[in-house]
């Protein structure tokens, strides 16, 4: 039981080095990881210390100027704002996603697959199309406004599209399944007898939830938080489409260094490296919290 709940970072079973056959089986994965994860990260790191080329590109060299640029208040403010948006999104996804995941996980097996399907169906359509659909819903002559006007709830169309609220709605909509699915997989493994035991031993429903259910599902919560927070920090399309491009996120800034006016690859690489380090720190923190939670 313990073993199963000690988290998504801890490996189950005795540790022993893989044999020759094991290494051979691992080889494709290692090659893949080196070619597509390690190598690009190393190139990015190298670029982040280089000088800017006139037309874009990089001129080899060593400078810390690009990192000094990251620390400029102009960009720090945007990094901070991206973190705030990602945190709000994560919090809403957690609060809204947990009950859904719990209900699906505890539902009758017959219903479970159907409900899970419901969560996944949106993935069958392109993310961009689904985001543009929100434009149709939120615009001033859109579905929501016409509905409210028809019902006489408002006299004037509400301003919903191109606001920070629209960005948060879009982000939550995009990432909610990434919160639900990992929590669901934890809830599904939850042993109902433990909850009954907690209730029998005098814990109220709130206490049973906070002391038994949450710790037991903490691997799912931690995975969900990471799966939502990390991409929400870097995404920029939602922001462009639903926010009207008014609030730049860190992703917009990085894109601009490569594909926009700025043509400053080394600076973009420095921003990317900073973000990567930030992700690593968040990952470390979340997995530690999760372990504490599970062992409490």
């Amino acid at each position, binding site marked *: 039981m313990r073993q199963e709940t000690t988290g998504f970072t801890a490996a189950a079973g005795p540790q022993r080095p893989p044999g020759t056959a094991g290494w051979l089986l691992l080889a494709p994965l290692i090659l893949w990881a080196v070619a597509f994860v390690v190598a690009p990260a190393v190139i990015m790191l190298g670029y982040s210390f280089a000088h800017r*080329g006139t037309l874009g590109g990089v001129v080899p060299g060593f400078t810390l100027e690009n990192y000094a640029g990251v620390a400029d208040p*102009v960009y720090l403010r945007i990094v901070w704002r991206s973190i705030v948006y990602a945190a709000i999104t994560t919090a809403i996804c957690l609060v809204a996603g947990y009950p859904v995941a719990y209900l699906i996980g505890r539902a009758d097996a017959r219903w479970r697959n159907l409900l899970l399907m419901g969560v996944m169906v949106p993935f069958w359509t392109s993310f961009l199309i689904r985001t543009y659909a929100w434009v149709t819903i939120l*615009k*001033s002559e859109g579905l929501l406004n016409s509905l409210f006007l028809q019902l006489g709830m408002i006299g004037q169309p509400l301003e919903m599209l*191109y606001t920070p609220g629209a960005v948060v709605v879009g982000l939550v909509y995009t990432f909610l399944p990434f919160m639900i699915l990992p929590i669901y997989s934890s809830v599904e493994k939850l042993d109902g007898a433990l909850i009954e035991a907690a209730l029998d031993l005098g814990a109220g429903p709130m206490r049973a939830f906070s002391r038994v259910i949450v710790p037991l599902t903490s691997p799912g919560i931690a995975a969900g938080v990471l799966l939502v927070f990390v991409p929400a920090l870097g995404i920029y399309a939602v922001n462009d489409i639903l926010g009207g*491009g*008014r*609030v730049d996120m860190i992703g917009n800034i990085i894109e*601009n260094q490569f594909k926009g*006016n700025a043509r400053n690859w080394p600076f973009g690489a420095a921003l990317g490296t900073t973000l990567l380090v930030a992700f690593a720190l968040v990952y470390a923190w979340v997995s530690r919290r999760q372990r504490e939670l599970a062992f409490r």
Partner: protein
Amino acid sequence: MIRTASRILAALALVAALGPARVAGAEELNLFAWSEYVPQSVLDGFQKETGIQVNYETYASNEEMLAKLLSGAASYDLVQPSEYTVEAMVKEKLLLPLDHAKLPNLKNIGKEYYGQPYDPKLEYSVPYMQGTVGIVVNTEKVKDPITGYGDVFQEKYKGRIVVLDDALEIVTWALATLGLGPDAVTKENLEKVRPILAKWLPLVKVYDSDSPKTALLNGDVDLGIVWSGEAAILLKEEPGKFKYVLPKEGAHMFIDSLAIPKGAPNVAGALKFIDYVLRPEVSRKISEEFPYTNPNVEARKLLTKEERDNAASYPPGNPKLETFRDIGPMAADVDKLFTDLKAKSGS
């Protein structure tokens, strides 16, 4: 199976031996151009006539094109840079000079397209389409006359404006209100522009370079400073409702050209394609789908009266138009200024 594999290997060896210059032979042409800019019918027509298959790969900004070209990941035969990018690419020796003897239809290009500072003799580039950046007014909602940037950025229009999400564009508009041209992007002038933009940006509701017409069509905004091609579509779809105005302070004119990058495997095919596009009846097809200003005067004669009278495609009068110049490393400063002010004005 093994035979196929060994054939592929042999072919690869041959390719390596001959170098990139002969790979494509006469069969393929790699065109790297703006998205939504080259009609499929033109590509089909060219292939039917010459047997050369055109691979059309797209980009959404000059910088994106440069990024790919510089990375050397793919070799292209034709690119479609705007004027300031042509200038930068010529400076960096990234373009091949064009053999005008192979371009008999070049004579169809209007006189005014010669003598532009970025490539005065069209030695490296042939104008494909020209456009302007101007003001679109929803005349049902905005009753006051709008003649320039100053009229758009007024407190009373707060939250009713869409502009291009483009730092250089917006900075040059502010420069124009100071009587400065788009080539005046210097550190000192950027400081002069800062207070103007600090006043303008909080009034903007939407920044969109890809499809700024959408916010106008949806009724979310009533004023826009957008590409003329986008405006022309609005004028066509809702005649009478929208008006296109070139700012009296001076408007940005862009000239998108076809050019052959250094290292192009199929130069002969690229020249054939340029000359094909320069034919009046072919160029006319492009205008039909993408109603920018056609630099091909012979093709203009084939347009319908409605097309010619579209004020966004063919602005009447004699407006003050200026092209962008390559601003080199200042681009990063422009971008930073815009990022900073946008962040401060947004919520």
